[in-house]
């Protein structure tokens, strides 16, 4: 089982590698297209800003590379947002794997301070019965840190509510994406990562 974590100009990549190790596997951090193409599993993680990270990927042809992958790919946080069509953050055109926009959380009047942005902390998932989500129990808590969110669309496989219901997980064919951080979500996150690595892929 060859697992790679895509290296690019986003933070929080080492935490994902440690989390993969905690569930019993090794992951290589790389930006080598040949290594990424040959991997059994690809993780596209990160914390960062949509405009500069997307520009970085484009300049290196990594946008085309990611779109063309056929093995299971897991986008996390900004990785997920970059897999969507467009982000309001810096008005950025993204990879378009999921045909849905990424929008800023706007706290409602008359009590805007009641809803904090960033959406930071533990919130619940209402998830679909897909192979990635097994044995999680009802409405499990996972850890979020973000100010933008993918809207709900045909590919939504988990919904979380903060100001508005949004897509906390998306799936289309071999592409999976999570708005929360499985690497920081305790036992629930570890189960999802383990499942991503070990689930069957034909």
């Amino acid at each position, binding site marked *: 089982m060859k697992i790679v974590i895509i290296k690019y100009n986003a*933070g929080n990549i080492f935490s994902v590698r440690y989390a993969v190790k905690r569930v019993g596997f090794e992951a290589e951090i790389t930006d080598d297209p040949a290594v990424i193409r040959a991997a059994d599993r690809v993780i596209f993680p990160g914390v960062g800003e949509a405009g500069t990270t997307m520009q970085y990927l484009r300049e290196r042809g990594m946008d085309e590379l990611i779109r063309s992958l056929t093995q299971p790919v897991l986008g996390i946080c900004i990785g997920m947002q970059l897999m969507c069509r467009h982000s309001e953050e810096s008005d950025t055109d993204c990879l378009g794997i999921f045909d849905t926009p990424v929008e800023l959380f706007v706290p409602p009047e008359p009590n805007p301070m009641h809803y*904090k*942005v960033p959406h*930071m*902390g*533990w919130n*619940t998932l209402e998830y679909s019965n897909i192979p990635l989500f097994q044995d999680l129990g009802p409405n499990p808590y996972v850890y979020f840190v973000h100010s933008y969110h993918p809207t709900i669309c045909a590919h939504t496989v988990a919904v979380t509510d903060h100001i508005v219901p949004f897509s906390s997980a998306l799936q289309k064919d071999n592409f999976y994406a999570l708005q929360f951080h499985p690497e920081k979500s305790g036992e629930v996150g*570890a189960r999802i990562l383990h499942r991503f690595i070990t689930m069957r892929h034909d």
Partner: protein
Amino acid sequence: MLAKRIIPCLDVKDGKTVKGVHFVNFKDAGDPVAMGAEYSRQGADELVFLDITASYEGRKTFVDLVRRVAENISIPFTVGGGINELADVEKLLTAGADKVSVNSAALRRPEFIEEIAKHFGSQVIVAAIDAELNGNGEWICYLNGGHIPTDKELFAWAREVESRGAGEVLFTSMSHDGVKHGYPNDALAKLADTLHIPVIASGGAGTKEDFKDAFLLGKADAALAASVFHFKEITIPELKQYLAAEGIPVRL
């Protein structure tokens, strides 16, 4: 619904949890990683590790500790203590910390917050503020762990750190800290109504009711405590069960 967070705080000196912090029947009481893992197992939502080491060697030890925490613990953690320049932040984040807390350095040079936000994003910055109510009814911010008063007023400074890019505010009232008579709920509620970013209540917890009040009266998003957890006066599972029974959303 977003859960209210419970955050144990560990003081670390030369890579060890400081004296006075102990678990009964817990053999690795001096090891911050083992203690953090135990708190995580009990249901802590995040952890804070504060480096109170003065020496250069001790600081290097702290970075090694941060790496071991990141390798072993699967919940978010913040590190603080002695962070004065961007290089300090980079070292700690590269070692695997999720957030850094800055206090005196930001009061001395407020642009420091913008620099961190620009390089690493707002989500990594916890602006820690120590303040005390003076005779005129004003909350005054203090430097250096509460030793040196500044000309900054709490609410104005909190708005400033938010506008400069802080991701959260951690507020400690110096007159409440360590007294165990509860958090400063009036000031917390005013902070919560002033800021768009989350507020962490710190210092003052003595009972489970104190946590409830910080969330309901103080409108805090998270509550940090040290000694009540370290001395097992309150355990995290019983605290969370209590809060849930009081109708407060917590991660069980």
